[in-house]
């Protein structure tokens, strides 16, 4: 009995379990630390569980050893008496640093935009070195645990953005005991099986879910034509995902259909302005203006959707090439005979003339004819998008659970996209008024080098263009950028988390391109970075959380939410709907718990013998219970949803579910 009382007291006085909620940066110039720490959900406070002492700051507090022993994670920059007292001593030798090696990913090239001269430090023997200079291996980031807390030391400040020098500071803090307070499980991720053909899907699916992924958008062109072996792979992939509450979308990249389709139909191949077949990078583009081609592709799409248990379709990048615009005729599309003929009929001009240096209409000689053709081209892209949305909607009649996403490159932030590739949001976005789809805004390659702050700006521009804010999503490309970017060519660590965090704050849904390019070191902190919690604080034994979207709060044991027993969550996480909520410890665990939900949780309550919750979802909802419910009612009507173990597949839309044990 006594031990039970102790456990209860522990639960009451340690809300939020072992998670780290707050940070504080000493001095008046916090540098990049707020960006680093808030990107994984930590809240700025007057006194932090993480205390950062920037270089050159002499903190008033003196008993740091005791605070660290009691659980504080102390972060020290550069040389200081405090750093010396914890064993990090600057020597007289100095070194110019430009290349850094992180021990987690020694192959990752970390290059600083500006070289920096730093002293060579002596670090304590028991300290773990996290990062060092690439060539002479001088320690640059190191740390060790002491008592319940830890010390993290950096040879130099992290830089103004937080990710300029040491991308993996959040990971280093996690290794020293930091547990991020919030977890979101709402990410979408693009997936190409070409990179995962021999993995154990049952090993990967739970890892994806733990990384916060709610849906995979699977490159469907590999499965356009039936093939027993590859079809079997895709079925296993979908089953493994569903077992782990992950939805699976067919990602279509029209006008690329498939490699075999390209081979089989040379007559329908798209042409560039040099009249070559339009095989540009990996995409082999088809002429969908041609009605015979359209009919054949439409038939293939129906077959593809019908052969597999998809949860949705993503109609992606349906416009033209290329990012170099009309200035590179070798990559400019469409220039197939159907398009040329249509334009000639409308304007009396063969668009090929626009690229002919001998023509009076050559674009370098006369801008107006090209501008007119680019207008026609943007309108053609919109017509094609509408046409294919119509095709999917027809398929939905027989597959009502299907969600639809339209991936469309941003042309509001980078306004050159309309001219370059024919993408025109002003024409596409109004289709949300007639059609039910998610408008997934793709970050164009031309702005991949800009910082995370671009996402709030992009969000602001789109929010003023539509009433359907809940239908806006953003796609972050996690790839090697062609621009001069630092410190890593591909976003990782602090930069990735900042991107995700700011994007999650501005958009209802965030998508990552792509599953295989996300570096393993980043996976554990993706859920923390994608959680949108503007405010949280502890008060009188309660944890007050203001969440913009559904969020999981790290919490040990049973919980009351807003004073009521709460059945949504596990022993480690409480699942909350969006809005302001108060969590406190509860004495008893509900008889039936909803451990995971791939849908928007609107409400939940424990009822006699079970639980009730409401949700909304654009695709089928996937609900994981602690044990299989004996009975279901959906919207007050007895129901028998398909079950996979403890997981129930619930209908698309907004519903109330009553489940009893």
């Amino acid at each position, binding site marked *: 009995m006594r031990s039970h009382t102790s456990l209860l007291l522990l639960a009451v006085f340690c809300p939020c379990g072992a998670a780290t909620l707050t940070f504080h940066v000493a001095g008046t110039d916090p540098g990049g630390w707020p960006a680093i720490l808030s990107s994984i959900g930590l809240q700025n406070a007057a006194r932090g569980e993480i205390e950062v002492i920037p270089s050159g700051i002499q903190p008033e507090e003196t008993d740091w050893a005791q605070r660290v022993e009691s659980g504080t994670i102390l972060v020290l920059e550069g*040389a200081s008496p405090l750093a010396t007292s914890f064993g990090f*001593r600057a*020597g007289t030798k*100095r070194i110019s640093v430009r290349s850094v090696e992180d021990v987690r990913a020694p192959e990752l090239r970390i290059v600083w935009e*500006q070289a920096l001269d730093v002293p060579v430090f002596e670090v304590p023997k028991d300290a773990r070195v996290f990062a060092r200079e690439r060539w002479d291996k001088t320690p640059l980031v190191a740390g060790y645990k002491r008592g319940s807390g830890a010390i993290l030391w950096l040879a130099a400040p992290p830089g103004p953005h937080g990710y300029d020098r040491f991308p993996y500071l959040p990971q280093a803090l996690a290794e020293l005991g930091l547990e991020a307070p919030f977890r979101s499980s709402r990410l979408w991720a693009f997936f190409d099986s070409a990179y995962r053909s021999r993995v154990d899907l049952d090993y990967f699916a739970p890892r994806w879910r733990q990384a916060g992924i709610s849906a995979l958008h699977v490159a469907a062109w590999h499965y356009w034509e039936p093939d027993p072996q590859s079809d079997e792979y895709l079925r296993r992939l979908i089953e493994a995902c569903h077992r782990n509450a992950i939805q699976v979308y067919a990602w279509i990249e029209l006008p690329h259909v498939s490699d075999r389709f390209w081979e089989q139909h040379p007559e329908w191949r798209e042409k560039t302005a040099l009249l*070559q077949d339009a095989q540009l990078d990996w995409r082999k583009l088809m002429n969908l203006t041609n009605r015979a081609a359209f009919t054949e592709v439409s038939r293939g799409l129906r077959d593809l959707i019908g052969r597999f248990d998809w949860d949705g379709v993503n109609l992606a990048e349906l416009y033209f090439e290329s990012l170099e615009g009309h200035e590179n005729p070798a990559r400019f599309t469409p220039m197939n005979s159907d398009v040329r003929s249509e334009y000639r009929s409308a304007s009396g001009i063969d668009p090929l003339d626009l690229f002919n240096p001998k023509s009076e209409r050559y674009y370098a000689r006369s801008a107006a004819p090209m501008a007119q053709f680019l207008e026609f081209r943007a309108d053609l892209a919109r017509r094609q998008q509408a046409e294919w949305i119509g095709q999917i909607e027809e398929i939905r009649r027989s597959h009502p659970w299907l969600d639809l996403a339209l991936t469309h490159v941003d042309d509001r932030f980078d306004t050159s996209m309309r001219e370059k590739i024919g993408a025109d949001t002003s024409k596409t976005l109004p289709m949300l008024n007639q059609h039910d789809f998610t408008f997934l805004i793709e970050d164009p390659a031309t702005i991949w080098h800009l910082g995370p702050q671009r996402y709030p700006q992009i969000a602001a521009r789109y929010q003023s263009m539509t009433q359907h804010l809940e239908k806006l999503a953003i796609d972050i490309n996690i790839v090697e950028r062609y621009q001069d970017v*630092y410190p890593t060519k591909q976003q990782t660590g602090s930069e990735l988390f900042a991107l995700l965090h700011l994007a999650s704050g501005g958009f209802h849904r965030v998508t990552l391109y792509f599953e295989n390019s996300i570096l393993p070191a980043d996976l554990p902190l993706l859920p923390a970075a994608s959680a949108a919690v503007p405010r949280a604080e502890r008060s009188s034994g309660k944890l007050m959380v203001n969440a913009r979207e559904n969020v999981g709060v790290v919490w040990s044991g049973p919980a009351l939410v807003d004073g009521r027993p709460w059945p949504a969550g596990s022993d480690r996480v409480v699942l909350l709907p969006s809005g302001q909520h108060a969590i406190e410890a509860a004495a008893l665990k509900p008889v039936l718990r909803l451990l995971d939900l791939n849908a928007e949780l609107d409400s939940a309550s424990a009822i006699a013998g079970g639980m009730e919750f409401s949700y909304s979802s654009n695709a089928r909802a996937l609900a994981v219970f602690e044990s299989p419910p004996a009975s279901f009612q959906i919207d007050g009507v007895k129901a028998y949803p398909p079950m996979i173990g403890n997981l129930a597949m619930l209908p698309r839309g907004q519903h109330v579910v009553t489940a009893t044990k």
Partner: protein
Amino acid sequence: MAKSFLGFICIVCNIWAWQVTPDPAFSLLNQAYAALRVKHYEEAIGAFRQAAALDPGRASIRKDLAYTLLKTGESEAARDQFAEAMRLDPADDQVALEYAFLCYETKKQVEARRVFDRLRRSGNPTAIEAFENVDRPLREGIARWKQALQLDPENFSAHEELAKLAEQRDELELAAEHYLAAWKLRPARRDLLLDLGRLWQQQNRPEDAHAALLAASRGGEPRVAEQARELLPSRYPYVYEFENALKLDPSNDALRRELAYLHLEMGNRAAAEQQLHALPQAAAPARFDSVPRSPSEPPDNKMLGEQSLEKGYMNDALKYLHAANENDPSDYEVMLKLGWAYNILKDDREAVRWFERASHSPDEAIASEASKAYRNLSPSLRRLRTTVWAFPTISTRWRDTFFYSQAKTELRLAFPVHPYVSLRFIGDVRGAVRMGANISPQNLSESSVIAGIGLAGPAWHGLMGWFEAGEALRYQIPRGETGRAVPDYRGGITYAAVKRLPRRLFAETNDDGVFISRFDKDSLLYSQNRTGRSLGENLQLYWNWNATVDAKGEYWANTVETGPGVRFRLNPLQFTVNFLRGAYLVNQSNPYRPNFNDVRIGVWYAFTH
């Protein structure tokens, strides 16, 4: 019975065989396979890795490890294990195929194509198909981009695409040709030079490769420079290598500037200037006699600041050091250098501020130097400044010890002329200078304590004027004179300058023009000059060039001296030892020989409050 016996023999043989050839990896492999059966891949991978370390020559362990890595998506690690298995067992075509497929998947297409090509030649049907799948798109792509270039020869992306495809197809010459063409269309894209250098290395064109990589390592974006650095030898490039690189990349200003610095360092000023004149105006440095930058230590503000300070380009030094301080506000060494830079520029208020900041350095050497400079300098900013100095000197010529000292308290006003009170002591221990003659060499010992008040002007380019009026209290009264106290008026101008030259060479001069009433209102000019070299921080070897002349033509006031000397510092004292050969320029009334030798050993001590 026979069966039992046979079984017993078998068991014994097995035990014997096991004892003779024990499998060092046996238990680890058991552990690995057990973990694999229950899909505990991390555990299995760990055990396989340990087993491979214990038995590194066994290809089968590498294969099993590779297949397990594949389950967890570790394609690159799996590829590397298959590579090792292929090395251990070159006859295993299946392993080679696995390796080639993974090379293709992990963007090592060239290697994949090579392995498929080797295997298809032995008739392996999978390799034949795989090779065709890899080669055909490359073939077609090359043909397509060649055609595009026929239609549009200046198309940058066509050149670049063609080069990439040709490189993947092992058509190195074609690839190099189009990387070069692409780079010529966009010379700022020095990443293409990196590709070119890599290709030329493969084509066994080391000098061309070196030129391309050297050009890529300078003036481009830092990431390209770092990659080029990996491919270059670790030594610093030779002049001809710079020249080759400039032939390839003549618009590379950073490269040209560095070659100029290198020429300067080697003493080839004309060649340096030639390179500098070839730079566009905006790219030319304001000063160019700086040291070359080593590729292993890229130029930075701190280094440039230190070099400028060393060379005496103080405005540049301030600019670079402030930039370095902004870059790393915790660099106490930069703070110290800023202190010295301001000190040299006579902005002691700023200097004191930086010395004070640097004195908090955790590096004891920096903190000590800064604290000392702060202590020395901060009094100069106070209204009342007291300076005390003493200079005892032993002279072998006079076999005596002379003692010169002064305590002076100065009132520092905004007005450029500062009043002061002074107490001097000028004397010797034995009175030796008076021996053998009735004429005193008064420049050596006045045997007096002189109290006075004076005015000192501001220092201007090392030049300062002063005048002092007081009373000399003589503790020894020369023969023929009376009165212990005599009026003393003196004044003059002082000039001091130090020139620091390359290679730690220096030249300094201390010149005093003095009027002294007590010396029959004589005016003397002392000029002490030293040229020499510093050896480390605290030791200098030099040559003395001293001269004294006066207005009245006294023999003792007209001498020249020369000879070697050494000066060293044992804080807070500075010792000098001079070996002098001298000559009197006026020998009328001179009781001594016209030439003399003297060894003078002196100790200098001073402090200011």
